[in-house]
C-alpha cells in the first residue's frame, strides 16, 4: 500500500504541452503512472505524444476522462488559477509543482481548495512517488524502490539524497512525499504522518524538515501523541543565518523562531530520532 497515490491513480497534467509539463508527463508515463489527460487552453482536441487527450479546460477533462488526481506545471502567475480550477472541477487530489507562486495568492487558494473538499500538495514541491505503483511530480523514479518506509519532506533534492541513501541501504519506500518549501502549502507534515500511520504497509517514517515556521515542532507533538510507528528526522539549515530567506520562501528564521536547533530539540523531546547528517537517517532507521 501507499498514501495519496497508487495503481488506481488516474492523472491529469495541467500544462502538459509546456517545457516542464511535457518532459515530466513523459517521465511519469514511462514510470507507469496512468496519465489519462492533459490541459492546455487552445490545444483541446489534440493528443499529447499521439496518445494522451488534451483539453481546453479542466472541467472538460474531468467530464470526459474521470481523472482522480492532477499535477500542475504552469508558470507561477497562473498556478493559483490552475489549482482553483482543479478544485472547482471536483478533482480530489491536486499536486502543484510550480515554484514561485505569490504567497498572497496562496492565502486565497488555501480556503478555496478546502471549501471544495480537495487535498492540495504543494506548491513548490517535487510531488510524490509510491515506488512501483505511480509517480506524480518530478521525483526521479530510479532512486526509489518499494519497501516499508514512508518519507515526508519540505525539500526536493535533499529528499532525493536521503531516498538514494535509503535505497542503497536496501530500505525501500511505501511513498515519498515532498510537501514543498513555501510558507503556505496545502498539505503539511501532520497530514502525511497521519496517512502513514494509517497505512498498514508503512512500518517507519522519515521526516525531513528545514528552518522556518513551526510545522516540524507541531508534527513532533503529533508524533508523540498519535503515532505508534517509529519516526526519524533530519532538519536542514543548522548553519543558516537569521532573517535571510534560504532559497525556499518558507526557509527563513524570524527573530529567534524557526531555528534548526529548536526543531531538533522538539524532535528529541517527542521521541523522534534525530539525524545529524542525511546519511544518519539510514542508521537510525536500522536501530528502530
Amino acid at each position, binding site marked *: 500500500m501507499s498514501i495519496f497515490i497508487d495503481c488506481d491513480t488516474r492523472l491529469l497534467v495541467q500544462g502538459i504541452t509546456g517545457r*516542464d509539463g511535457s518532459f515530466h508527463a513523459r517521465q511519469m508515463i514511462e514510470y507507469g503512472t496512468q496519465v489519462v489527460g492533459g490541459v492546455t487552453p487552445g490545444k483541446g482536441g489534440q493528443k499529447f505524444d499521439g496518445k494522451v487527450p488534451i483539453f481546453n479546460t479542466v472541467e472538460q477533462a474531468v467530464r470526459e476522462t474521470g481523472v482522480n488526481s492532477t499535477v500542475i506545471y504552469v508558470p*507561477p502567475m497562473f498556478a493559483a488559477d490552475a489549482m482553483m480550477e482543479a478544485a472547482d472541477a471536483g478533482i480530489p487530489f491536486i499536486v502543484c509543482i510550480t515554484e514561485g507562486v505569490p504567497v498572497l495568492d496562496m492565502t486565497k487558494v488555501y480556503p478555496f481548495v478546502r471549501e471544495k473538499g480537495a487535498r492540495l500538495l504543494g506548491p513548490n514541491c*517535487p510531488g510524490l512517488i509510491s515506488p512501483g505503483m505511480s509517480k506524480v511530480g518530478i521525483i526521479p523514479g530510479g532512486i526509489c524502490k518499494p519497501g516499508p518506509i514512508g518519507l515526508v519532506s519540505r525539500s526536493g533534492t535533499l529528499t532525493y539524497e536521503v531516498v538514494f541513501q535509503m535505497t542503497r541501504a536496501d530500505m525501500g519506500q511505501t511513498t515519498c512525499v515532498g510537501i514543498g518549501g513555501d510558507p503556505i502549502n496545502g498539505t503539511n507534515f501532520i497530514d502525511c504522518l497521519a496517512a502513514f500511520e494509517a497505512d498498514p504497509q508503512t512500518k517507519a517514517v522519515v521526516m525531513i524538515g528545514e528552518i522556518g515556521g513551526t510545522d516540524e515542532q507541531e508534527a513532533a507533538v503529533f508524533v508523540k501523541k498519535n503515532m505508534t510507528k517509529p519516526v526519524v528526522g533530519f532538519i536542514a539549515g543548522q548553519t543558516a543565518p537569521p532573517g535571510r530567506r534560504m532559497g525556499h520562501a*518558507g526557509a527563513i528564521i524570524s527573530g529567534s523562531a524557526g531555528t534548526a536547533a529548536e526543531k531538533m530539540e522538539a524532535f528529541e523531546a517527542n521521541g523522534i530520532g534525530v539525524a545529524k547528517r542525511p546519511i544518519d537517517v539510514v542508521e537510525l532507521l536500522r536501530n528502530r
Partner: protein
Amino acid sequence: MNIHEYQAKEIFRAAGIPIPPGDVATTPAEAESIARKFGGTVVVKAQVHAGGRGKAGGVKLAKTPDEAREVAERILALTIKGLPVKKVLVTPAADIATEAYTGVIVDRASKRAVFMVSPAGGIDIEEVAAKTPEKILRHSVDPRYGLQTYEAMQLGFFLYSDVKQARAAAKIMQQLYSAFISSGGSLAEINPLVTTPAGVVVALDAKMVIDDNELDRRPEIAALRDESSEDPSEVDARNANLTFIKLDGNVGCVVNGAGLAMATMDLVKYYGGDPANFLDIGGSSNPEKVVAALRIITSDPSVKAILFNIFGGITRTDDVANGIVTATKLNPLKVPIVIRLTGTNEETALKILQENSFSAMTDMDEAVKKAVALATGGKAA
C-alpha cells in the same frame, strides 16, 4: 524585496494614508535645500535596507538648513550593517503626543494576512511581544472578505479610546491592507503611528517588504528595486537567476536545491569547516548559471576551496560539468575544487570532467570532508 522608507511612504500616501511631506537627498547640499524649503526643524533619515538605523546614527534632527547639511553629510558617510547609505529622507519634525505600532504580515500559521497593533509604538515590536504581550492585538484577515470596517474599528479602539482617533486609525488600517495587497507585500508597517498634540493620527515611518514572487506581475513595484543599496555579489547572483547569500566561511558551496544547499552547509560545519555562502543554482540548470556561480564565489577572497554538490533530477549533471569546464577556462581557478555529482546524465558528466582533468565523486559526505580538508589545509577533522 526590501524597499526604502521613502518608497513605502509613496505607496502608503497613494492609498490615502496621512503622511507628512518629505523629499529624498543624495547629497548634503540637496538635504540643505530641502530643509530650507520645509523651514523649521527637520529629521534626516538614512535610507538603507537595515534595521536599527537610529542606534547606528542614521536618524538625526536638524534645527537649521545648515545643520541639515552637516547631519546629511555624516549620515551619507555611514555604512550600516555592511550597507552604505546612499540616500537620506528629509522631512519636517513632527510634534508627537502618542506613538503606536501597526503592521501587517503574511502569517504562515493562520495562512492569512495578520495585523499586529500596539499602543506601545516607536520601539521594536518583538520586544513588546516578548515583554508585554497584552499590549499587542493580533487579528487575522479573512482573504475572501478583506479587512471589514468593524474589524478595523476593533483594532482602532485598541489603540485609541477617542472615537475620532479610532476611526482615523481604522481607516488607515484599511488603506494599509489595500496597499499591502495591491503591492504584493509580505510585510507593511507603520512605526510609529503617532497622534499630534492636536489629536490628528499620522504615519511617521513606513516599511514594506515585497514578496519577490509578485514582481513579475507588478513591474511598477519591481522598478523600486535599488541595487546600489544591496550587496553587489547578491545583485550579481539574482541577475543570473541564482539564490545566493554571503556568509563568513571559507568553503564556497554550489548546490542545486535549497534544502540540499542548507544540508551541505551544515555538513561543512559538521566536518569542521565554515560555509562561505548559500548558493542554489535552482532546478533547471544551464551552463551559464554555473559560470555565474563560479564567478561570484571566486570573487570572495576568503574562499579557500570550492564544493559542488549536485543531485541531478531536473538538473542535468552534464550541464553542470560543462559549466565548470567553461568557467574555469575563462578564469582559471586559484583555489581547489571538489565536485560531487550524481543523478541525471551522471555518466556523461563524469566523462566531461575527466576529459578536462577534473576528478569527481558521487558520495556527499566524502566530498564535503575533502573540501573542508582543502580549505583548512587539513587542520579540520
